[in-house]
């Protein structure tokens, strides 16, 4: 069930600001297990299940529905496309990959009028020397298929490699799948639980800056992917391993998790023998930073899934980390002793 959900969600193309297709799929997945939903003005999908307590606490779980992508900025005389990134897309990652604008796939390639220039461009990749070939025969042909201002994403498949799940947009569809599973398993409980499938995280935490303004949750937990330290010669100053459990974030470049939330996650994991890791990420940020400064401020934290090759077409997560995140969060939302 979980794998199929994740497979369906990662297959959908929905970059920042263009999240509607994935939000519709999420609503279908949640049919019958939520009490209500709404779309807020900037497009965040908010779902909830009412608490049964007399004064229910409000817990908000966030997973961003957008993914990184590209946008067409110009179509040249011969029908080749110029693009800019939507969020953090390293042009090096794009070389030789397939991307997709609507129904039309394209190949990414670099310019170079001499072999020296081409090698220089390979060494210093940038969007100035990169183009996308959708097989158009002319400008008109291209314009009949795609348009300037259209957003696109990587073309990639979902692969199961031993215990690993690999695909584009694990960042952050894995969180969307986790929240869906939490709601699916949610029995009547004291707390009111909100799920926010937020927009435009990848271009700068837009959705999470406003999603909770009218909700006033007691706590907000962002769920997102994080880095790894278990591949050859990678981040030696951090300790983040796939398969050792979801990571309870202490700090990254954008926020410090509320100590109360760190305690809540840690004690719940220990009580239920759920494996977990602690995480101090030397860079990056999550939607927790947006929630933290909403209105009068919301105690916020992050539960992360260690991930390899983040922002590539082949983001790799460990099945057991995803399952353990679901177990942990399901126990957390049911707790009212805090």
């Amino acid at each position: 069930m979980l794998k199929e959900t994740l497979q369906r969600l990662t297959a959908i193309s929905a970059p920042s600001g263009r999240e509607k297709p994935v939000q519709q799929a999420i609503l279908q997945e949640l049919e019958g297990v939520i009490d209500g939903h709404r779309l807020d003005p900037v497009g965040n999908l908010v779902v909830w299940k009412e608490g049964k307590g007399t004064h229910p606490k409000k817990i908000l779980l966030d997973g961003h529905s957008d993914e990184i992508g590209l946008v067409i900025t110009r179509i040249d005389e011969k029908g080749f496309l110029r693009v800019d990134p939507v969020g953090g897309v390293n042009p090096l990652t794009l070389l030789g990959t397939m991307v997709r604008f609507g129904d039309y796939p394209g190949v990414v390639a670099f310019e170079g009028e001499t072999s020296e220039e081409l090698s220089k461009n390979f060494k210093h990749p940038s969007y100035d020397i990169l183009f996308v070939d959708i097989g158009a025969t002319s400008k008109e042909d291209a314009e009949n298929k795609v348009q300037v201002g259209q957003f696109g994403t990587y073309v990639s498949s979902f692969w199961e490699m031993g215990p690993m799940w690999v695909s584009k947009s694990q960042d952050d569809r894995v969180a969307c799948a986790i929240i869906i599973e939490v709601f699916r398993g949610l029995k009547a409980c004291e707390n009111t639980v909100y799920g926010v499938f937020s927009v435009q995280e990848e271009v700068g935490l837009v959705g999470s800056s406003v999603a909770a303004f009218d909700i006033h949750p007691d706590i907000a937990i962002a769920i997102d992917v994080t880095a790894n330290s278990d591949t050859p010669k990678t981040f030696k100053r951090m300790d983040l391993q796939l398969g050792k459990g979801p990571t309870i974030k202490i700090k990254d470049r954008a926020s410090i998790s509320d100590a109360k939330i760190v305690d809540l996650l840690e004690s719940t994991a220990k009580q239920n023998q759920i494996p977990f890791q602690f995480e101090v990420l030397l860079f990056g940020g999550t939607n927790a930073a947006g929630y933290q400064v909403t209105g009068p401020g919301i105690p916020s934290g992050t539960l992360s899934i260690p991930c390899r090759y983040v922002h590539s077409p082949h983001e790799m997560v460990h099945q057991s980390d995803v399952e353990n995140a679901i177990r942990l969060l399901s126990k957390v939302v049911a707790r009212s002793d805090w």
Partner: protein
Amino acid sequence: MDLQALCEINGASGNEEKVREWIQNRVQGMADHLTQDPVGNLVATKRGKNPAGKSLLVMAHMDEVGLMVTGYEEDGRLSVMPVGGVDPRVLPGKKVVVGKDALPGVIGYKAIHLQREDFSTPPKWENIRVEMGFGKKEDCKKKVKIGDYVHFYSPFEELPRRFLGKAFDDRGGCALLIHALEKMSPVDYDVHFAFVVQEEIGLRGSGAVLKQFRPTCALIVEGTTAGDNPELEKARWSTILDQGPAISYLQGGYALDTRLLDVILGTAREHAIPFQMKGRTVGGTDASRLARTYSGIPGGGINIPSRYIHSPASVISKKDYENTGKLLLALVQNKKYLDVMEG
């Protein structure tokens, strides 16, 4: 002419007072309601016939880029820092006016004769000086304070197909807002024309507008980079003069609302107003701030292409300016721009 008057007023970020006063006088009698908020934003509201809680926020920023005095040299010259994004390469040899009394000065730099390898690198801010002819620190201190604003001296010129001047970013937007307010036919919903402060130093002013008004959606009218210059390949030009208002779809920190974008494109086509899609996604506008403030207001953006933007002398196309005005007026009166928010 409104554009000329507005561009010739000096008002770098944080110093918008004179721009605000001018606009306030100009829109008296046109708006049903005029408010100024504590940070200095001015909002002129045209009441709707049947608003039913719906309103449109149209926004342009009053501030321009400039410089600020940071210290004195013994010989009476001034050191300065930028207010907003100023390229130090456009400064040497340009006339400026300093402080409230707009005293004349010039930006100095090493003469070409004395330059060697530094000829190929941009001047450093620490080496840029403003000369006001005082000759002595004590005399300069009597007339100029630390923190005084330094504005470009740049009289407005009308050229055959262009306007030449400073501060089109975003007095062009301010002028077009005034014209839309003046010409618009009554509509059902309220329209708030907001003239905001401190955009150029990080979108600091616009968020405060939402403390008083909770509009359905927003439309930002901006000056944007042209970049149709020979040193850039055509494929990397941002916008091209004379091709009409530039429509934004992605910018620094915000992907513009796709529903509003569709209405903007549809409205331009319906009224046969030429337009172009922006060719680059760099640079932000107040739409990025509004989407992140309180419960979030979605926005769209139309822009007047400007050559040599953020310099003492920018150039815009008369046709683009007119067509941006036409598109703005059509959008302000297009109920669809608000209705798509419900779908």
